[in-house]
């Protein structure tokens, strides 16, 4: 009799108290949640912290952890799946201790699928399928349309004007390495410029930061001169290795620019803060400057200091237009397809969201918007 009263009486401290197997986990973990009734949250006798007590079937209670007063949940780990556990929460206050009623039996279990991440799974599968589809198509050599980037016309004009002025052309990859995708894109832009230089017989200077990129540049230019059947004009000496130090490279380039006074300069690749010195010296000798980089932090300075700038992905589009290489072309087309989907989702959702606000009581629209919104929330 006494025991039952004790149980009922205890129940009055907590508004709610529950324990359950932690969802979407590898098992061995139970989560406890509780809420103290208002009247027990007095300032005169504030709660210091909560102590968590656990008991197995026949054994006594042991203290397994504690949580500061501002929390009302605890995750107990290291348990054995399928075994019954009982819990009790002690509310340690300044002057006394309140004990919750005993809850249980509860047992932990592992889940095979994290249901919270269903939206991530669906999108991951879509991305794999879309990219694989377009890369295979590009590999098979199918004609995939890529529009001509305005920057390519600017490149032609620049080479033409430099030739009229009878001044050489300078090309730089910046501080990129051969493993950077932007360096590979810059190589195909270089091959277009080299072909034009071969036709016009204009001298092409390429100072380099990385020896491997220099070797790739020499290869590309030699090939371009061959294609324009002017192998005699190709001068290996114009494609040199300067230094592998950021500002040393910038100072080296400045020296060449001031000495050779190029008519057109191409900054295509990955740049860091030295882009400032390079673009400024180029401007001081009156050269037409065309920049192209994926380095978001340097783009503002290139746009302000150069005549034309290829912004981020425009470089990949330019190189795909010039010399479509399956991996890059396939990825670009895959990205475009996904961008189209995102554009549709954004416009459609904007309309639905606006209607949901206007027709507050029309539950269907609100439910539809909740559904879309739910897909794009991280749980």
């Amino acid at each position: 009799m006494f025991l039952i009263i004790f149980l009922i009486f205890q129940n009055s401290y907590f508004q709610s108290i529950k324990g359950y197997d932690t969802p979407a986990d590898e098992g061995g973990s139970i989560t406890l949640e509780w809420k103290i009734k208002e009247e027990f949250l007095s300032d005169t006798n504030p709660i210091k912290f909560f102590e968590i007590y656990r008991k197995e079937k026949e054994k006594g209670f042991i203290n397994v952890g504690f949580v500061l007063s501002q929390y009302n949940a605890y995750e107990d780990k290291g348990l054995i799946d399928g075994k019954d556990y009982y819990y009790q929460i002690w509310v340690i206050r300044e002057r006394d201790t309140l004990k919750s009623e005993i809850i249980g039996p509860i047992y932990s279990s592992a889940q095979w699928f994290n249901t919270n991440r269903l939206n991530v799974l669906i999108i991951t599968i879509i991305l794999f399928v879309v990219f694989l589809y377009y890369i295979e198509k590009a590999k098979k050599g199918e004609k995939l349309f890529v529009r001509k980037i305005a920057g390519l016309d600017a490149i032609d004009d620049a080479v033409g004007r430099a030739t009229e002025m009878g001044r050489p052309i300078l090309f730089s990859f910046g501080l990129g390495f051969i493993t950077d995708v932007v360096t590979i894109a810059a190589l195909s832009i270089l091959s277009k410029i080299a072909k034009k230089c071969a036709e016009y017989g204009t001298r092409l200077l390429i100072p380099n930061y990385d020896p491997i990129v220099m070797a790739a540049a020499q290869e590309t230019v030699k090939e371009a001169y061959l294609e324009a059947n002017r192998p005699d004009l190709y001068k290996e000496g114009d494609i040199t290795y300067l230094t592998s130090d950021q500002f040393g490279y910038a100072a080296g380039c400045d020296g060449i620019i001031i000495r050779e006074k190029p008519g057109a300069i191409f900054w295509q690749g990955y740049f860091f803060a030295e882009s400032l010195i390079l673009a400024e010296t180029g401007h001081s000798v009156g050269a037409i400057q065309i920049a192209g980089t994926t380095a978001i932090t340097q783009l503002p300075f290139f746009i302000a200091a150069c005549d034309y700038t290829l912004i981020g992905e425009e470089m990949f589009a330019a190189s795909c237009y010039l010399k479509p290489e399956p991996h890059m072309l396939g990825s670009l087309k895959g990205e475009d397809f996904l961008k189209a989907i995102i554009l549709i989702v954004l416009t459609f959702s904007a309309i639905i969201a606006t209607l949901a606000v206007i027709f507050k009581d029309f539950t269907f629209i609100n439910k539809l918007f909740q559904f879309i919104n739910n897909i794009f929330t991280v749980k």
Partner: protein
Amino acid sequence: MILNIIGTWLAATLTLAIFSFLYKDNPFYKLAEHIYVGVSAGFWVIYVWSFDIKPMLIDRFISETGIEKWILIIPAILGVLMLTRWFPRTAWISRIPLAFTIGIGAGLGVTASIQGFLIPQIGATLLPLTNINNILLVIGVISTIIYFYFSKEFKGSLKLFSRLGIIFIMIAFGASFGYTVMARISLLIGRIYFLLHNLLGII
């Protein structure tokens, strides 16, 4: 105390050696540059020893027991295999640990980009067009994406949206320009504060 004075003078000479680059590229700048490359390379070796090899391999090997102790041999071997890249003949072996780390990096990257960026960022753009800021935000994101869309010629409405996109992009780059200028100047202020305060004690 003496050490601090010597140190401050050493730091001041190195600072002026780097600043001398402003006058023109000179041997003092090159010297300071090479000291920096040498010292920072040395730093990395000390870090790898005291924060990777010692605590994660040696200490753990001593403290672990049973099967866990011998499993530790695998990452140790993979780590050492990485160093085979130093010798041209055996360099290809280093591709095995390299492939391991690149695979993990790529695997983590895919799910993180989707859960950590695409979903929340698209989710944050599902806004009702009920106030001017929401309208500009949604239109800004749409027109910027259209600007970087390469599968269709820019005609008609696409041309309009791409023009709108470049306006948003230029305002964004202008803002980054202003913030970057602010950042670069703060670095100079920090250095001059060092020269005026620590070295000369004027302020």
